[in-house]
């Protein structure tokens, strides 16, 4: 199993993703955004950061990087693609995921551990989790407020595309537990086909006891288990 970690100018969570995957025994490689193809990889990660300095809109310019043509083509063929934070913003800009991420309602950049509830476990990213489980994972963003029109939000709900919701310790998705004002407390969504997952929290920063939480590991482990099962079949 080979994973590609796509590096854009301004990516800054690429090494965290690399270490998280390496510690799970994954053969991970960095792929510069000017590369033309990610076809040789089994799993594609768009890490967090500030690609192109967040100019114009977060992710708006990265979405036109040469590598993105291949990322979009691979995603459309069913390859697992994970977008974390800025990666999530890029996936939305690339129309691989619906909606958009706008300025946090508080206007503040927020860097803290939050809790998210697992809403759907029938995806390859969450297959190893139990529904309703509360994960403690850090966020670090200024633009993580998920917005979409009502029809899109209804569609996400009906198709089980909402994967993570911000919640409190008891697992309740309250407004007080919503750090950025995201519609319906949405922290992470997938596409209809469920092979593209974007989330604002950083699971790669919650994969080592020394970082205060290992709750993010289950997401990467789920992908590995799903891909391993597929390879064995």
């Amino acid at each position: 199993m080979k994973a590609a970690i796509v590096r854009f100018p301004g990516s800054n969570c690429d090494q965290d993703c690399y270490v998280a995957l390496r510690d799970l025994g994954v053969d991970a490689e960095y792929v510069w955004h000017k590369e033309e193809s990610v076809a040789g990889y089994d799993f594609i990660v768009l890490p967090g950061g500030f690609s192109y300095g967040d100019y114009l809109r977060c992710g708006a310019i990265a979405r036109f990087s040469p590598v993105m043509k291949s990322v979009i083509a691979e995603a459309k063929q069913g390859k697992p693609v994970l977008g974390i934070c800025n990666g999530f913003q890029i996936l939305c800009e690339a129309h691989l995921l619906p909606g958009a991420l706008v300025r946090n309602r508080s206007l503040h950049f927020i860097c803290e551990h939050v809790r998210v509830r697992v809403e759907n476990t029938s995806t390859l990213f969450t297959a190893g989790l139990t529904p309703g489980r509360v994960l403690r994972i850090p966020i670090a963003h200024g633009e993580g407020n998920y917005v979409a029109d009502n029809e899109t939000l209804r569609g996400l709900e009906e198709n089980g595309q909402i994967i993570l919701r911000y919640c409190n310790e008891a697992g309740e998705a309250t407004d007080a537990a919503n750090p950025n004002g995201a519609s319906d407390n949405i922290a992470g969504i997938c596409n209809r086909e469920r092979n593209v997952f974007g989330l604002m929290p950083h699971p790669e920063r919650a994969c080592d006891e020394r970082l205060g939480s290992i709750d993010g590991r289950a997401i990467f482990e789920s992908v590995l288990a799903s891909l391993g099962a597929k390879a064995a079949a």
Partner: protein
Amino acid sequence: MKATVIVMPKKSVLDPQGVAVRDAIRHHGIPSVKAVRIGKFMEIELECGDEAQLHELCRDLLSNPVIEDYTLEIAADSK
């Protein structure tokens, strides 16, 4: 030719920046201010270009139709 593009957050999308500036204007002694919305103004200079292509550019890159509206104006060079 010169194209000017204005990109504004859609009415339905919260513009926290506009709200913060509105509050600052109130603190500045103008309590009558009702609302502020903040967008982007872009000037694009081109050798040549067609309008349809520029609209495509506005939709694909310069604005995000999910959260923003744009207006495009094209002015021919004054000779």
